[in-house]
């Protein structure tokens, strides 16, 4: 086992907060396939469809048979750490600030030789290891040589902590504590070791079940926050934005209308006002503050989580206006991801299928239990993924969408959700 991380010391207010730097982010187009897989937590390499040879580094033709049919396929990562080094010098600003830094050369059982980052907990070369792909602070995939078995406190490792967004010792804002999901998120974050959790609540006169219990948690501070009000967002940002390490925007309005089932735009406008403009207001107030603290010590600002919906990928007509608002939010989240990239802040988009709540009452199971979704979100932060499709429904929709988005659209139009 490795030693657990100690709580970071309080920041010395006299010292300048370091500006965020990024590891080198340039990649060829073909190499972005590694990033696309790592973004959802998978380790994939190109494999030749004709001769089966596994390829690395990514390339345009099979190095054995010259076939152009190279497909990204999941890999076990089993391999042998052949050699290692510890850098005590780097020309790169990101690594220069993080020396010494351990690197290894791994030969995968499937053939190729890989350069990998090595956490301290990985045994010394030569040793059997497991290679996995993670996103680094630049949001690009890098390879890691890991111990064969998970080790206690492994996520506390200094190298891994540069990859993931673990809430341990971090300060989190959850924008809506009144929903079952919001409350489950707060509990999961507290269990994961979050330092402080600010929990937003709009419309204070509404006494909803479970909400009052949250304040019993020592980490929790309840704060008024209404995403439909620029003033409310700005006021909270003025108080806490400079301290927030992770924003989890779970506030949403969900109505169950298409176009013809309701006259007027009031419900659709309310959805857009929270689901889209609410994200925009929040991002304008909190985004710059997070970006300024992307390298603020061991518990720096690190992530921004958006609760989207699998309906953001393709419109689900019975919840048509909600789908549209989530599609708008997805598009804005991509913009946010691009803008946060330079500071190393990961934007995590969550695409759940129907959550088991009041607004999905009429949908048949399986539906996502709020507690399960909350745990999946915290796990996504701990694993460092940036796109999360939790639950069976989301996974199935994703598979259909990836296979052929037009076919999925037709199926949904025909009521074959």
């Amino acid at each position: 086992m490795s030693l657990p991380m100690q709580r970071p010391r309080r920041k010395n207010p006299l010292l300048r907060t370091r500006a965020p730097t990024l590891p080198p982010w340039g990649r060829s187009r073909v190499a972005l396939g590694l990033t696309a897989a790592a973004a959802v937590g998978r380790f994939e390499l190109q494999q030749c469809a004709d001769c089966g040879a596994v390829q690395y580094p990514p390339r345009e033709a099979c190095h054995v048979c010259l076939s152009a049919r190279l497909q990204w396929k999941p890999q076990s990562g089993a391999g042998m750490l052949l050699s290692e080094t510890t850098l005590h010098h780097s020309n790169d600003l990101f690594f220069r600030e993080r020396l010494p830094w351990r690197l290894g050369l791994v030969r995968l059982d499937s053939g190729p030789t890989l350069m990998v980052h090595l956490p301290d907990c990985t045994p010394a070369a030569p040793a059997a290891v497991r290679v996995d792909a993670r996103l680094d602070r630049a949001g690009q995939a890098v390879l890691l040589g890991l111990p064969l078995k998970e080790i206690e406190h492994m996520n506390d490792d200094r190298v891994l902590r540069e990859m993931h967004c673990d809430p341990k010792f971090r300060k989190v804002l959850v924008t809506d504590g009144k929903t079952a999901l919001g409350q489950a998120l707060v509990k999961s974050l507290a269990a994961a070791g979050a330092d402080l959790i600010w929990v937003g609540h709009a419309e204070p006169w509404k006494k909803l079940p479970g909400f009052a219990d949250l304040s019993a948690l020592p980490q929790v501070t309840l704060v008024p926050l209404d995403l439909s009000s620029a003033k409310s967002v700005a006021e909270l940002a003025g108080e806490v934005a400079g301290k927030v390490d992770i924003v989890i925007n779970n506030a949403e309005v969900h109505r169950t209308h298409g176009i013809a089932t309701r006259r007027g735009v009031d419900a659709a406008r309310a959805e857009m006002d929270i689901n889209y403009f609410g994200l925009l207001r929040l991002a304008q107030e909190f985004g710059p503050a997070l970006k300024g603290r992307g390298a603020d010590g061991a518990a720096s600002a690190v992530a921004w989580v958006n609760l989207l919906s699998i309906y953001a990928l393709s419109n689900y007509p019975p919840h048509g206006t909600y789908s549209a608002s989530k599609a708008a939010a997805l598009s804005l989240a991509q913009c946010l991801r691009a803008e946060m990239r330079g500071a190393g802040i990961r934007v995590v988009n969550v695409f759940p299928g129907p959550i088991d709540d009041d607004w999905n009452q009429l949908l048949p199971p399986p539906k996502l239990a709020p507690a399960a979704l909350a745990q999946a979100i915290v796990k996504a932060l701990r694993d460092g993924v940036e796109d999360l499709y939790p639950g069976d429904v989301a996974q199935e929709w994703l598979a259909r969408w990836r296979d052929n988005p037009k076919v999925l659209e037709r199926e949904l139009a025909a009521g074959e959700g």
Partner: protein
Amino acid sequence: MAKSTRQGYAGVAVAVPVTVPYVRYSTHGAHWFVGQVIAEMLRQSGIAKEQIDGLCVSSFSLAPDTAVGLTQHLGLCPRWLDHLPLGGASGVVAVRRAARAIQAGDAEVVACVAGDTNHVDSFRASLGSFSLFARDATYPYGSGGPNAMFAFITAHYMRTYGARREDFGRICVAQRENALATPYAMFRKALTQEDYMAARVIAEPIHLFDCVMPCAGAEGVLVMSEARARDLGLPYARLLAATERHNAYREDPIMLRGGWAMDRDELYGQAGVKPDAIDLVQFYDDYPVIVMMQYEDLGFCAKGEGPAFVQSHDLTRAGSLPTNTSGGQLSAGQAGAAGGYIGLTETVRQLSGQAAGRAVADAQLGLVSGFGMVTYDRCLCTGALILARAN
């Protein structure tokens, strides 16, 4: 089908070794350095510019130009032109191909030149775009240049064959001794084994004196027929043998041998000599582990005996196998692609009476190797020449 027999290199002369003195940084461009080499070649040989009808250029910092742009820049009109982006194998490969052009009559006088400039930030700036594989699979891991990859290779070699840092120190210290008499060497301060061992660590097990210093500079030679060289009254070395090999032993998961081993029988066969006849060697020396591998791969000792070999041999000019007699890149500096020529110009000087003040006594045969382009996890290009004193 039987493998065809390669023709020999009889009648080819390598002459007029030129070195534009190395500087740590320069505000000149690569074109300046290449131009100075050719100007100096003309000055030393008395050849008119119009008589250079072949040109081969290697440079990392010539962009956006290539060799053809240089013809206009320098007012040359060659009928044979090559651009070799082979880094540390440039010199060996340039001479091998130029020799064929001479033998075939495609050209009569070929200028083989490598030169690079070095601005204050150009080394760092060049790293991320060195190769597609480097950009995708090594540069993101933070070591910048090749230090990490050669640290892997060195550590793996040490574990496999029991080499110790002290053994690599013998190579670096001997080369520094050699460099003390080389006017253009960047490092001309004596280095002791104690200094070597006490150096700061760069990427374990590589320490400061295992690394070359990037600098600006240029090197070149003229390749022509022996008859032409004699007519011009130029001292020269004869080319006896030449090989090049790329992406050798790609099945090895980590580099433990270089492509020299694949071609060495043919190399010595062409020259009609055995390794023990070689009087001096100029091994490509980006890191001392590569020098050690070349004693093995070029037949001076068996695989794995490199450490014992360097322990039992004096590698200085006065020693039992003079190695990198100008100090090599480890002491003279690495002037980009010119690093692939430093052993070539030095060998020609040694074998043609032009190594004033640092001549190896009675040297008749010299071996020059090249090693270039760490596009991912090893250098892809290897090559070697055997040159002889013209009597």
